[in-house]
C-alpha cells in the first residue's frame, strides 16, 4: 500500500480494567472520503484519535503499522506529533462550544491556527482568516471575525471551527460527528461547506458518525465498526448489497422510514 495517505494495521487500544476496546483495526486511506460508522462504544472515535495519538489517559495503544504519508507515527515523538497535528492532520469535533476557545475571538483563533504553522505577518494572518470565514460561507466575515464563540450560533461556530482546521492546509481532516450537535436546519449547510472544501483542496477525509444515511451519502467508502472491530468495509455505493448481518440490521433500521 505505498502512496497511501494513511496506513493502519492491527490497531489495538485497551484500557486497564476495561480490556481491549479497539481490536485489530486496519485500513488504508488515500485522498478520498472514508466514513466510519458505528454505535456508541464501537471504537470509531478512539480509532480516529489514535491517528493523532490523542488518546485519553489510561488508554494503551499498539499497532503493527500506523503511518501518515509515509511517516511512521509509532516512532514519532510528542514534539513531532504536535507539528503534524493541525498542520497536516486536522480534527473537527462534535460540539464547537467545547472545541473553540471561549476567551478569544473567532478571527484571532483562526489567525493563530494559521500562524502556528505558517510564517507570515499579522496582516497576512488576518486576510487569511477573513478569506477562510468567507470560504465556509460566513456572510459578514469582518463582523464575525471579532465575535466570541458564545456570540455565534452552533452552526456558525462549527463553520468557524472548520475554517480554523483548514487554515494550515492540512492533508487529512478527521471529522468526528461534525454535525450531530447542530440543529437540523444548519446541518446541511455545514456538510456542504465540508464537502466543497475537501473536494477543492483534494484532501483526505475521515468522517465518523453513528448515522449510516449520512456516511453512505457523503463518503466514497464506508467502514462499519462494532465492538472494536471493522465488520464491513465497502464502497459507499455497494453498501446496499453489504453482507454482514450487523450492516444489514443498520440498513433495515434506516429503511423503516421509506417502507
Amino acid at each position, binding site marked *: 500500500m505505498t502512496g497511501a495517505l494513511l496506513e493502519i494495521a492491527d490497531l489495538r487500544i485497551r484500557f486497564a480494567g476495561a480490556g481491549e476496546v479497539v481490536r485489530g483495526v486496519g485500513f488504508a486511506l488515500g485522498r478520498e472520503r472514508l466514513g466510519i460508522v458505528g*454505535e456508541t462504544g464501537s471504537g470509531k472515535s478512539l480509532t480516529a484519535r489514535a491517528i493523532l495519538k490523542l488518546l485519553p489517559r489510561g488508554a494503551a495503544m499498539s499497532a503493527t503499522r500506523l503511518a501518515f504519508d509515509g511517516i511512521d507515527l509509532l516512532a514519532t515523538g510528542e514534539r513531532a506529533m504536535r507539528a503534524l497535528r493541525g498542520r497536516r492532520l486536522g480534527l473537527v469535533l462534535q460540539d464547537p462550544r467545547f472545541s473553540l476557545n471561549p476567551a478569544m475571538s473567532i478571527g484571532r483563533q483562526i489567525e493563530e491556527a494559521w500562524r502556528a504553522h505558517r510564517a507570515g505577518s499579522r496582516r497576512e494572518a488576518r486576510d487569511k482568516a477573513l478569506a477562510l470565514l468567507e470560504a465556509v460561507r460566513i456572510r459578514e466575515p469582518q463582523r464575525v471575525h471579532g465575535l466570541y464563540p458564545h456570540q455565534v450560533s452552533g452552526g456558525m461556530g462549527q463553520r468557524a471551527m472548520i475554517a480554523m482546521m483548514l487554515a494550515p492546509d492540512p492533508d487529512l481532516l478527521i471529522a468526528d460527528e461534525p454535525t450531530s450537535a447542530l*440543529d*437540523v*436546519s444548519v*446541518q*446541511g449547510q455545514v*456538510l*456542504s461547506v465540508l*464537502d466543497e472544501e475537501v473536494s477543492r483542496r483534494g484532501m483526505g477525509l475521515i468522517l465518523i458518525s453513528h*448515522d449510516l*444515511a*449520512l*456516511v*453512505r*451519502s*457523503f463518503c466514497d467508502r464506508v467502514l462499519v465498526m462494532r465492538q472494536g472491530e471493522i465488520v464491513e468495509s465497502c464502497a459507499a455505493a455497494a453498501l446496499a448489497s453489504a453482507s454482514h*448481518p*450487523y450492516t444489514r*440490521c*443498520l440498513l*433495515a*433500521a*434506516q429503511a*423503516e*422510514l*421509506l*417502507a
Partner: protein
Amino acid sequence: MIAAHGLTARFGATLAVDGVSFSIAAGEAFGIVGESGSGKSTVLRVIAGLHAHWSGTLELDGVPQSPRRLRPGGAAQMVFQDPYGSLHPRHTVDRALAEPLAVHGIAAAAERIADALADVGLAREHRFRYPHQLSGGQRQRVAIARALILAPRLVLLDEPTSALDAPVQAEILALLQRLRREQRLAYVLVSHNLAVVAALCERVAVMREGRFVEELAVADLRAGRAEEPYTRQLIEASRGYRRR
C-alpha cells in the same frame, strides 16, 4: 385518552413547552419527534405527573388534571431511555416488578410477575437476576414489563430504543409493536429518530423550541408530504447528505 390544550411547562425562567395542544384516542400511537432541547420529553413528563410546573388544560381519561394533583394512576406508565438508569441496581427483576403491585395493593403478585416476564419474552430464569446480570435489551424488556404489569392503557415511551445496539433496537421495536396489538395499548412515543416514530406510530407531531410546528400522519411522513420547511429538513437529514 389524553386531551391537552395550551399546555405550557417551565424550568425556572425557561419556557420548555410553549402552548402545545393535542389529543390521543384510546389505542392510538402518537409520536413526538424533535431535536434535543425541543421540549418533547417535558411533554411526556407532564403527562406522567413528573413535572409539576405547567399550565394549560390536560385531561386524562376525561378527568381534568391540575399540576398539584395529577393522577395518571394505573392508567399510564412510562418507559425511559436508559434501562441502566431506570432499574435499581440492587433489586432483582422480581423485586422491580413486585413493587408497583405492592404499591397498588394488587394480589397474586407471583403469577402476574411470571406473566409479565413471559409477555416481554424473558425466561423464568431471569426473574431472580440483578440488572447487571442482564444485557441492555433484557433490561429494557424488564422496564417494559414493569410498566405493563399494572395493565395500563397508555404507555409513555421516552426514546425507548436509543440507548441500545441496532439489532436490539429492532427487537425492542418489534416487541412494542406486538404488545400494543395484544394489549390494545395507546402509546405516546418521544424520539429524535424519525424511523423509530415511523415504525411505531400512526400520527406524529414535530416539535421545535417548545411548539408543535406540524402534526401529520406517519404515511405522509414516509412519503415526504410535509407542509413545514422544518419537517422537510428533518426528513431530508434522515435520508443523508444531498450534494448540490
